[in-house]
């Protein structure tokens, strides 16, 4: 009888490390070796690029000149590089060096052609942003730098400069009983605007530096009246804006110039080509009438940034298709573990379940981001170029904004994929997870762009649901001093780009947290 002790077998090999990098590598290997997933991700990128380029190639604009189609005139560009409207009636003199202008406005009237509800009459009235006042401008070229003090129909006294800047002064309409005095002074690069109710007590409204102004500028009176905008539901989904001609007339007196040649003659210019409508031809053309030291100026148009046109993110029309593909892949990346029972092996190899989920999220997020950025970095710049060649005028944006659209869209795809993965871990069933992911990310966006829901409702959808993240794509801001169709269906989101993206990230984080909790609590 022998007694002995048996020592249990121990491998001489060093145990493998089980840190997070190893886990990442394992998950990456799982992803990489399923051919269908890699192909699907590639297809998602290809879809984004090809949809975008087809869309850009198919977009053409031409303008009618009689019966002949000609290329549309290039819209003017403001000092900041943005597309602008610069049409107004200008009564002006040259000013070299320092100087200023003071006027009193006693009346502002106008007409609006064919307003709602029936669009069948020409009525007298003013659109809210009809404007009249004094302006200092770098010549009469459209898009040149300027600063102006003005009275508006419904938004009181304003100081505006270089198209995008707007400062509010005293509210209220102008009338003979409540006249408005305006003053604009130039001293070096500095322009300062004042207003007064009586011509003695002056209040400063705003001041700005315009280093682009040359020594000799044009100073004088102006009147502009932007088109009346009516937005209607389109039968095909989304909304259609219709612009209708309006005209404003303002009465100026007590005109005082400082720094100009004494006794100088007024020049008159219609800035921008207008004076074409039937109303102007047969009733009242733009222009100026002098009587007893007063000036009655009539004009139309607007001095403001343009709001209608194609923003560069329109080239990302295929992004939604790519997003759906990525959602499907992300969900499968998780649910395949359960379907094949691989989850048991995975969790034996890496018992810390939250870390497994984190590794999966990092892998699917990175893969989606890389596929997304490869697609958007091609689509946005080349799509924009093709649009320009086709006679379209996509809004020019700074390279920083373009970069935000390109990288932000890829980040949006990545976070959406992580959210879908987390839903996959929560439901463990691919169909339920995919439907939920599409219902919360894609459907609100679809409803915002193509449904009968009113804009107020779609704005709330784009604030509260993960679809808020699409705001990262908006490249042109909404200007409160310009009437525009700022509806979600026109590409204007209710949240700022990064705020909207943060909402999506919060949803993804919440879903990941719930999924990690469920993984820890329940058996596999």
């Amino acid at each position, binding site marked *: 009888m022998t007694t002995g002790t048996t020592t249990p077998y121990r491998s001489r090999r060093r145990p493998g490390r089980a840190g997070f990098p190893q886990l990442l590598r394992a998950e990456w290997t799982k992803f990489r070796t399923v051919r269908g997933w890699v192909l699907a991700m590639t297809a998602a990128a290809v879809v984004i690029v090809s949809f975008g380029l087809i869309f850009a190639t198919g*977009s053409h604009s031409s303008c009618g000149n009689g019966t002949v189609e000609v290329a549309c005139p290039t819209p003017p560009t403001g000092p900041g590089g943005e597309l602008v409207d610069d049409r107004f009636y200008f009564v002006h003199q040259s000013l070299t060096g320092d100087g200023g202008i003071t006027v009193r406005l006693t009346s502002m009237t106008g007409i609006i052609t064919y307003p709602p509800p029936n669009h069948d009459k020409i009525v007298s009235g003013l659109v809210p942003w009809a404007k009249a006042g004094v302006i200092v401008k770098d010549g009469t070229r459209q898009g040149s730098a300027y600063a102006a003090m003005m009275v508006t129909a419904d938004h009181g006294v304003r100081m505006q400069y270089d198209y995008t800047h707007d400062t509010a002064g005293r509210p209220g309409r102008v009338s003979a009983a409540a006249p408005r005095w305006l003053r604009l002074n130039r001293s070096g690069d500095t322009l300062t605007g004042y207003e007064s109710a009586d011509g003695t007590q002056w209040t400063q409204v705003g001041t700005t530096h315009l280093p682009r102004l040359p020594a000799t500028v044009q100073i004088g009176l102006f009147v502009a009246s932007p088109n009346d905008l009516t937005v209607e539901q389109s039968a095909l*989904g989304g909304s259609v804006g219709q612009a209708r001609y309006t005209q404003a007339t303002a009465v100026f007196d007590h005109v005082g110039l400082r720094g100009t040649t004494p006794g100088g003659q007024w020049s008159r210019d219609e800035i921008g080509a207008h004076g074409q409508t039937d109303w102007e031809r047969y009733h009242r053309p733009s222009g100026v009438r002098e009587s007893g030291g007063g000036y009655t100026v009539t004009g139309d148009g607007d001095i403001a940034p343009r709001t209608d046109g*194609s923003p560069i993110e329109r080239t990302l029309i295929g992004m939604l298709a790519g997003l759906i593909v990525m959602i*499907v892949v992300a969900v499968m990346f998780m649910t395949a573990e359960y379907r094949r029972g691989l989850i048991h092996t995975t969790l034996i190899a890496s018992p810390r379940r939250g870390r497994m989920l984190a590794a999966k999220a990092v892998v699917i997020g990175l893969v989606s981001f890389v596929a997304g950025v490869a697609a958007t970095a091609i689509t946005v710049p080349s799509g924009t170029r093709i649009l320009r060649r086709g006679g379209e005028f996509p809004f020019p944006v700074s390279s920083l904004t373009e970069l935000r659209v390109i990288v932000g869209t890829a980040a949006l795809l990545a976070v959406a994929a992580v959210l879908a993965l987390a839903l996959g871990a929560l439901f463990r069933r691919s169909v339920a997870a995919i439907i939920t992911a599409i219902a919360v990310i894609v459907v609100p966006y679809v409803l915002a762009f193509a449904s009968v829901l009113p804009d107020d409702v779609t704005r709330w959808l784009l604030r509260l649901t993960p679809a808020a993240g699409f705001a990262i794509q908006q490249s042109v801001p909404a200007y409160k001093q310009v009437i525009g169709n700022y509806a979600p269906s026109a590409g204007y989101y209710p949240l700022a780009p990064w705020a909207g993206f943060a909402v999506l990230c919060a949803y993804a984080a919440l879903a990941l947290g719930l999924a990690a909790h469920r993984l820890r609590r329940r058996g596999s």
Partner: protein
Amino acid sequence: MKRELHAEWTKLRTAPGTGWVLLAIVALTVAVSGAAGTTVSCTQAGCGHDPTKLSLFGVQLGQAVVAALAVLTISGEYGSGMIRTTLTAMPRRVTVLAAKAGILTGLTLATGIIAVLASLLAGRLILPGHGFTRAHGYPPLSLADEPTLRAAVGSVLYLALIALLSLGIATAVRDAAAAIGTVLGLLYLLPVIISLTPDPHWQRHLWQISPANAGLAIQATTDLPSLPLGPWPGLGVLAAWTAAALVSGGLALRLRDA
């Protein structure tokens, strides 16, 4: 065929979750329809809204759950390997698909009728409080009106066609995730692409071939001439998609190994 129908009915009846999915179809459709009704108001006569379409708005979300039910009836079998048992027991494959389609159609029609009637009832109760009154030219919703009846019947048929379309696609694609992704992509992508298409000519053409856009024309009761297709031809477009999907699903089932 009777045997196959009985087998498919038993499978669907005993599958966990079928009842919940049917409940979800009704609940989601009615809830979204009701919510849409409370958000829209008509402040004056001729405000241009379509109360029937608005009351049936939830169909746009309910269809996603209908698609899920349809996909699961076939993809579930591929996922679990049950399909081999099914096809061993019932070797006539196209008949199996037909039986699945029959059971699915019956179930969707029954659920659809409940969902659509409940949505219209909700609309009838909610909309008058939001300005849809006789004074503004909107009598209460009633199935006695021919257009409203057509919209209601058509919406039920629409849901059934969506179920069959999804069944056809899922039979061809097999994988549940890929199938539901394809169906939802088809239903939700085209409306966005159409609204973003700048050329009105292309817009109308895309609209005419889009299953969701053309199919839901059946719900329109106002301003019909502005639609690129009439209600019934529109539903016909969806029916053509469904037929194509079922034929390709049937061919794939017949020609491929399970």
